């Protein structure tokens, strides 16, 4: 919006204002003299500090990833142990049982499949570690997110899981069924 400029507006500021501004500027300069601080360099230091921090983080992440790779590739023992889980003939066809393997903190599921016989898998769903149950129709069901696995192979049939269930190898000795070894897949 245009405004008509009067001659009074064009006059320079009154001397009192000029003195006040000068006084304020002088006080600021005195303050800066008493506490000298390189403001421009401060901006650079901040960015460089950020860069160093990011660089250190990058190195730390590389070391952590390398440590995970080393841990994952450490030579492992055979981890073979025979845990008795059932008697031969104890499970009827399509019957199933949950057992502790290799210790009480992990479970497997033993199924007597028609036409295939005894199979065993880890009952931990490969999606988000819920326990799967046998449905009786040749499928293992994870109730958490509706995952379905083939009971004959352990492969994924439906749902969010993308990896098959770990297989548990079985052995039969003197009429007893033993869980021997878990094979991650």
């Amino acid at each position: 919006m245009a405004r008509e400029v009067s001659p009074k507006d064009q006059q320079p500021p009154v001397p009192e204002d000029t003195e006040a501004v000068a006084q304020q500027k002088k006080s600021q300069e005195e303050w800066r003299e008493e506490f000298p601080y390189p403001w421009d360099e401060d901006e650079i230091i901040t960015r460089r500090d950020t860069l160093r921090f990011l660089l250190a983080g990058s190195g730390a992440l590389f070391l952590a990833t390398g440590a995970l790779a080393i841990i994952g590739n450490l030579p492992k023992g055979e981890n073979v142990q025979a845990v008795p889980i059932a008697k031969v003939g104890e499970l009827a066809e399509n019957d199933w049982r949950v057992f502790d393997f290799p210790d009480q903190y992990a479970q497997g599921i033993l199924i007597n499949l028609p036409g295939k016989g005894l199979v065993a898998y880890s009952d931990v769903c490969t999606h988000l570690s819920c326990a799967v149950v046998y449905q009786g129709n040749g499928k293992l069901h994870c109730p958490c997110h509706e995952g379905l696995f083939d009971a004959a192979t352990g492969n994924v049939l439906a749902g969010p899981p993308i990896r098959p269930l770990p297989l548990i190898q079985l052995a039969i000795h003197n009429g007893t069924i033993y869980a021997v070894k878990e094979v991650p897949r």
Partner: protein
Amino acid sequence: MNSNDNTQYRHKANPDDPPVKLPPRGPKGFLPGPNYLGLRGRTAIVQGQVYIVAVVLIVQLLVITDALYELLSGRTGSLLWLAFVSLIGFALALLVAFWPRRRIEES
């Protein structure tokens, strides 16, 4: 609008823009910009370094997340590859951080 006005300013996207100048010439040719040798140029370079290294760091975070998932899933075959990718990221971050070592020349 008069067509004569259009022909008058047809070489300028905006008539209020300052005239275009060539960038300053350095010892090895044209410099990237008028402020390249000064404080503002150096600041822009460091800012760019920060952005690039931050992107590398984000990728490394994704890599270590996947590595942890693979390890806890019992699949260790891809862990060495993931560590190699993370190493490449770290090497790239080192390169980006230490390559432009130009000192600030006050203009």
